């Protein structure tokens, strides 16, 4: 799991420099600390940090925030992610919602200004480190522009090129910017059979189809489907968040429905919602449906055939 996140992590260090390193280390250390202290003193059990789940939550939380976020805000995020998102339900395997997303959404609602001032990516060694330069995400540019009544073609010329968005050279949270490297990590997870194809395929498929229909209806109002795929937390959500075993359904059919639901909600929020980005909300909403989706039973041996 951690190996799969390395490509995207390295890219974030490359574009966001020391800020990204600082955010990641803080998030991981804080997650481990809160998990340890809560298990030991509140649950009164033997802490088991070696299972690595707190490290993953920490990295995922860091992936979901801007690289210039103050340290104390990150620590609060980790406290909510681990304390409320995970340990309050009894720890590993028992939480209904993805802990990192619980932390992220808490921060987004509580600290909207800090959480939405993304530093511009500055490739390492190429330019002097400038801390103060911030800018919006591609999705933000489109959303604000459309609300103001700008034309779609104007707006598309303002956003980074597809190549930049694939590689990570665009504004955004530190781990979500590089679609390509996240995809690489996702394929590794699939290859190692840590995750199955069901959720990623139905998630991406639904996003493509639904946003494709909107785009065909009115290309001046709705952005094209490929743009949706490479921007925001899409790839991060598809491979690392929605596929979280603990908070996703357990049968293949349930997983397909879950993925489709997340895809649908993401586009609805992106297009008509108040926020430019909807992946995290969509996943959390579908997390709530998992117990219901788990009532879908696997195919039992012998049911399809009649005895003679």
């Amino acid at each position: 799991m951690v190996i799969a996140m390395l490509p995207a992590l390295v890219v974030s260090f490359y574009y966001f420099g020391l800020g990204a390193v600082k955010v990641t280390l803080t998030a991981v250390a804080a997650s481990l600390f809160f998990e340890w202290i809560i298990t030991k003193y509140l649950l009164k059990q033997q802490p088991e940090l070696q299972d690595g789940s707190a490290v993953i939550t920490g990295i995922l939380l860091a992936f979901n925030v801007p690289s210039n976020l103050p340290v104390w805000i990150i620590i609060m995020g980790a406290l909510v992610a681990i304390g409320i998102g995970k340990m309050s339900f009894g720890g590993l395997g028992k939480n209904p919602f993805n802990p990192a997303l619980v932390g992220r959404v808490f921060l987004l609602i509580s600290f909207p200004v800090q959480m939405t001032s993304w530093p511009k990516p500055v490739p390492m060694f190429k330019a002097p480190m400038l801390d103060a330069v911030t800018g919006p995400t591609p999705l933000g540019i489109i959303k604000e522009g459309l609300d103001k009544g700008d034309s779609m073609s104007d707006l598309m010329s303002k956003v980074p090129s597809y190549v930049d968005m694939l590689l990570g050279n665009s504004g955004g949270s530190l781990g979500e910017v590089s679609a390509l490297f996240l995809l690489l990590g996702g394929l590794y997870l699939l290859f190692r059979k840590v995750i199955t194809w069901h959720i990623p395929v139905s998630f991406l498929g639904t996003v493509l189809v639904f946003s494709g229909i909107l785009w065909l209806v009115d290309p001046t109002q709705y952005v094209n489907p490929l743009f949706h795929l490479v921007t925001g937390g899409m790839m991060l959500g598809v491979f690392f968040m929605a596929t979280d075993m603990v908070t996703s359904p357990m049968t293949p059919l349930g997983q397909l429905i879950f993925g489709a639901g997340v895809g649908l909600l993401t586009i609805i929020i992106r297009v008509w919602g108040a926020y430019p980005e909807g992946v995290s909300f969509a996943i959390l909403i579908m997390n709530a449906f998992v117990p219901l989706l788990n009532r879908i039973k696997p195919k039992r041996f012998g049911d399809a055939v009649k005895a003679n």
Partner: protein
Amino acid sequence: MKTFRLGGIHPKENKLSAGASIETMEFPKRAVVPVAQHLGVPANVIVKKGDMVKTGQMIAKGEAFISANVHSPFTGKVFRVDDVLDSSGFRRKAVIIDVAEEEEWVENIDTSKEINQDIKLSPKEIVDKIHELGIVGMGGATFPTHVKYMVPDSKKVDYLIINGVECEPYLTSDHRLMLEHGEEMMIGVRILMIALKVNKCIIGVENNKPDAIAHLRDIAAKYQGITVEPLKVQYPQGGEKQLIDALLRRQVPAGKLPLDVGCVVNNVGTCFAVYEAVQKNKPLIERIVTVTGKTVKKPSNFLTRIGTPVSMLLEKAEADLEATGKIINGGPMMGKALVNTEVPVTKGTSGILLMKKSESKREKEGNCIRCSKCTSVCPQGLEPHLLKILSKQQENESCEQERIMDCIECGSCVYTCPANIPLLDYIRMGKANTGMMIRNRSKK
């Protein structure tokens, strides 16, 4: 290549004893012959202390519908009829025989090695013979064979299926039998086809035994209607229901028998026993036992008389008991740990597996992270993680709804669980409780 459709795993095969020819085991001084070596009602003892018995003489009669006769594997004097600890750790009735120096067989038994090809008996006579001579399923479940061949008129059977899969890692007794007694086994197959009045038979063999497949194909070519089908190496390919699904694409519904989808399944070892019974009048008094494991110096296959203590087999195979952590009766997936090594070999002992101390240690149980790997490998399409919780909380009615009784106890879920949760231990407990609830309900 054919295989079953749901779930399955591929554990390391570890067939250490595959190259070891069958060796005949020496006789013990004293033999313990349990009267409950089969599934069903124990047989009633018909000898008493002090009686002299000949090899092959009946010593216990299975009088219930599902039961089997037991014959004396040795010549000697009955020392005692008493309750003795058997391989499952229960005290059960057994006939203890002091083995004499000179062996004397019951008169009508043909002990020559000559192969007798002529099948003279009628279907009914064959079934009676199988019944009389105590033949049971040799694959491990030890279901009395004659019961399978008493087909009610309402059922139509069109296939005999022979199980030569041997999907359990380590075990090789069926493999060696197919190689060394293929001819006799095939006559047994033909006898069973006559008894069942079918003209089609498929022998399923896992593809990790190409020599056995080639050998059986050579023999089968001489006869009409017998085909040998290689199967993908996938556990539990040798499960009765999985095997039928793999070969015929028919699935036995929950709570039903292979008869309900038109077939009867028997193990290759059973076919050999049927040959010996019908053609040679020889009752089931010996079987091939694999003795294997990483702490066994000479992994072997022994032709062993029933009643021989396991300790003698271990000695002959040069087992290092110091380094052994656990001794298992059967294979690593479904076998059960032995309580001691003085228990006797019975009709169902297909192998004795020794595990190193490090292999037999249980890993610490972690939290379930709902990865659902157990669901994806279950060959019966069940949800082991859910059954475990329901069993633990004794929610017997929910267990029944979630089809706990369909579980074939193959252990694939335990094998695959990343958190080392002993799922099957809980499920077995749940099955016992749920089964009791269902039986009590039908009593009312």
